[in-house]
């Protein structure tokens, strides 16, 4: 591809505009949006034991950008998933409503590197269950 003088000028102007953009794009995350937080905040001092909660994740993930995971927690009202080695550990909160067919869900997550993925389920009686899985990541998924 050949660049004419005009193209080069246009490119330069575009790059300058892009450089200024982040300063103006302060419109960040919705302040009312709920965050997943950290495991300690969810547990609030309570103990979590093993139970029927299962966390399914691959042992080795080639691409940390899309790691398929699923949780299955019979009798849970809420399940939170944490990636303990990510810049922010919270991944997702699943709340199951009255019409949930099962307390299970699948999604795809980003992992920055090889690390432990933890799921914590809050059961209907207020107790907690936890499950942990180590995922080896070949290419990290959080950008540098």
């Amino acid at each position, binding site marked *: 591809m050949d660049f004419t003088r005009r193209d080069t000028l246009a490119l330069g102007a575009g790059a300058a505009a*892009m*450089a200024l953009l*982040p300063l103006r*794009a*302060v*419109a*960040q*995350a*919705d302040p009312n*949006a*709920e*965050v*997943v937080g950290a495991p300690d905040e969810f547990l609030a001092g309570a103990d979590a034991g093993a139970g029927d909660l299962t966390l399914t994740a691959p042992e080795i993930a080639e691409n940390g*950008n*899309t*790691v398929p995971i*699923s949780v299955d927690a019979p009798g849970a009202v809420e399940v939170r998933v944490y*990636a303990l080695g*990510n*810049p*922010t550990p*919270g*991944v*997702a*909160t*699943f*709340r*199951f*409503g*009255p*019409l*949930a*067919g*099962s307390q*299970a*869900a*699948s*999604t*795809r*997550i*980003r*992992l920055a590197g090889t690390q432990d993925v933890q799921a914590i389920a809050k059961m209907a009686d207020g107790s907690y269950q936890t499950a942990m899985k180590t995922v080896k990541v070949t290419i990290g*998924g*959080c*950008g*540098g």
Partner: protein
Amino acid sequence: MASGVKPRVKAPKKASAGEVVTIKTLISHKMESGQRKDSSGNVIPRSIINRFTCDFNGENVIDVVLAPAISTNPYFEFDATIPEAGDLKFTWYDDDGDVYEETKSVAVG
């Protein structure tokens, strides 16, 4: 990101009363994590979908809070109980205030 967002839902059109059906949803969204930097070293601002809900005839099936660690084009698979004929309503909430909705009717019989 308000352009190019397209929700896709796979749900059965028919079910028997009380049946548990599996639903798959996907929405095209870049899910910018707020961790990446552009070529000049500036942080690219976060822009994600932060909440997803599914309701059937106004009753909640699942309510998910999403963090930046959810992959591009967020995908969810879950089960719903279909007690009667009605509509499944899916809602995604974007960081920029946009709300994307999709409805699927389920017949019973």
